[in-house]
Structure formats: C-alpha cells, structure tokens
C-alpha cells in the first residue's frame, strides 16, 4: 500500500522533538477549546443584552401605559372623526344635489373635491357625463357641464303647454312652451336678443350656446325623433 510505504519511509524524530510537537498540539488544542468557550460566551452576552433590552422595553411600556393609551385614543379619534366627516359630507352632498344645488356649489359648500361630488351626482343620476341607457328610471335632475358652470333642463307640464326650466349654476330661467301643429311639435318661447340679459340675467354672449343646449336637451329628453332650430324668439322642435 502506498500510504504504509510512505509511513515506513518517514524519519523517526528524536524524543525531544516528540515533546515539542505534542506541546504544540496541546497549545493549539487549548486555543481551539478557548475559542469554543469564547464563542459561546459572546452569544451568551448578546442574548443577555437582548433580554435586558426586552425587560426595559416592557417596563417602559408598562410605566407609559397611560400616555400610550392617550396617544392611541387620539390617533383613532382623528381617523374615525375624519371618516365620519367624509360620511356626513357625502350624505349632505346627496341631499343638496337632490334639491337642485349644482355640483360645484355643493363642493364649495362642503369643502369637498368637485370630482367626489360629481361621482355622487353620477351615482344618483344627477349628472350625465355622456348618453347611456342602463334601463333605470331617468331622474328629474340631470346636470351637465357647460363651459365652467353646471347646467340642466327640467320641465313643468301644464296640459297643452308648460315651462322648460333652464338652470345655469344658481340662475334659473323659465321658458314657456306650447305644442304646435303640422311638423312642429313644440315652440319654446325665449327672450329676443334685445331682452335676453334683462330677462335672464345671463350675458348675451352665452345666449346661442344656452339655446342650443336647451334644444339638444329637449330632443334627448322628450323628442328623440325630432330636430330643433333656433328662431329670434323661440326654439322650434320639429319633425326632422
């Protein structure tokens, strides 16, 4: 065997050399043993420090319990109060929208983001972003945005006639309408340009836009198969 051969060939050391080798091995062994103990001691000290920290933290927490309870109470109070205020705001917004307050006014009154009020208005059908048909009853109040102001058209029927009610923000205009004959379904009386501002309190510059808005709204709400045209003192809804 090669190993045995090499051992047999190893030179035999002197007795004093044996002692020196053994002493070195003993010293190395003692160092290794000391390292094992030192490692364990280090871990022991780290854990002792960890235990002391945990003990102190528990003691401090126990001693500070009243202050901590007060801090938690304040945090929860603030959070719940904020939630409640938002909940009440949404409730009040819904009620204001239901009595025809325009969405931007509602937002300003309640200090709410206008987008949030619009979301409520849309959910309850008080605002129409675009034409849709979900098969649900159409609400009476339906705002649309005209430039920067909310506008809507509603109707007050009185037999052969009635009122088309136009609201722009908080400004309300009532225009008399009557059913016509032949190809004309309805005449809606509107002030002539000369009397527009005096009668409506709305700048003349907005007249065309408003009359078109009313015409489009009436067609969409009441006469889908019809068209409209604007004449000097009326909007005419006619068979298209």
């Amino acid at each position, binding site marked *: 065997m090669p190993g045995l051969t090499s051992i047999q060939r190893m030179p035999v050391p002197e007795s004093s050399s044996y002692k020196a080798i053994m002493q070195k091995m003993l010293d190395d062994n003692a160092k290794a043993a000391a390292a094992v103990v030192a490692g364990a001691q280090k871990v022991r000290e*780290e854990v002792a420090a960890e235990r002391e920290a945990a003990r102190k933290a528990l003691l401090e927490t126990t001693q500070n*319990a009243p202050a901590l309870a007060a801090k938690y109470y304040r945090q929860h109070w603030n959070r719940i*109060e904020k939630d409640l205020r938002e909940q009440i705001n949404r409730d*009040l917004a819904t009620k204001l929208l239901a009595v025809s307050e325009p969405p931007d006014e509602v937002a300003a009154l309640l200090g709410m983001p206008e987008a949030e009020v619009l979301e409520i208005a849309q959910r309850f059908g008080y605002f129409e972003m675009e034409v849709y048909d979900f098969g649900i009853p159409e609400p009476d109040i339906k705002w649309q945005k005209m430039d920067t102001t909310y506008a809507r058209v509603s109707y007050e029927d009185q037999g052969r006639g009635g009122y088309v009610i136009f609201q722009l923000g908080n400004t309300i205009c009532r225009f008399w309408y009557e059913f016509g004959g032949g190809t004309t379904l309805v005449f809606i009386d509107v002030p002539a340009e000369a009397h527009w501002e005096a009668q409506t309190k709305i700048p003349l510059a907005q007249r065309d836009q408003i009359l078109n808005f009313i015409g489009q709204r009436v067609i969409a709400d009441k006469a889908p198969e019809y068209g409209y045209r604007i004449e000097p003192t009326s909007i005419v809804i006619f068979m298209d």
Partner: protein
Amino acid sequence: MDDPTSSFEAYAATLQQVMTDAIQQAEALQAEANADREAAFADKDKMQDLLRQLENQAQRKAEDDLHARYGQLKEEMIASVIRKLKDGGKTEEEIEGLRKALEGSR
C-alpha cells in the same frame, strides 16, 4: 497533573479533557443563553399584548365617544353650510328650504 507529554496516553487524555471541558462550558453558556432568549421572547410578547390591549381599548373608546358625538358633529357641519349659504347671498326662504333638506333623513 502529570506531564501530558510524558506519554501518548497522557497526551491524548489531556487533549480530550481540555476539549470536553470547553464543550461542557460552552453548553452551559448556551443553556443560559437559551433561558435568557426565552425570557426575552416572553417579555416581548407581554409588551406586544399590552400594546394591543391599550390600542384596542383606545379604539373602542374613540368609537363610542364619536358615536355619541355623531349628531353634534352633523349639526356643526350643517351650521357651517348654512353660514356659507348666508354669506353667499341666499335668501332666508332659500336657506330654510336647504336647511330642511339637509336635516331630513335620506
């Protein structure tokens, strides 16, 4: 103690004894560390339990207190809206109508 280098037996026994003693000592230290670690965990658990208890009690109290204040809070918010409506130039009649709408149940 005999000279450990005097014989192979003494030498081997010394090597083994030194390491055995060291391991025994290390194991004792490890056992103490384990006991401390358990104690630390127990203290941490107690602290977490205490914090949870404090927070739960605080939350329940805040909920109860605010539930009791709900009506007052709503009245304050309605009053604020009414003030803004007055400042905005609404008539008394309009404001009264809006107040009724705001105070009514949905």
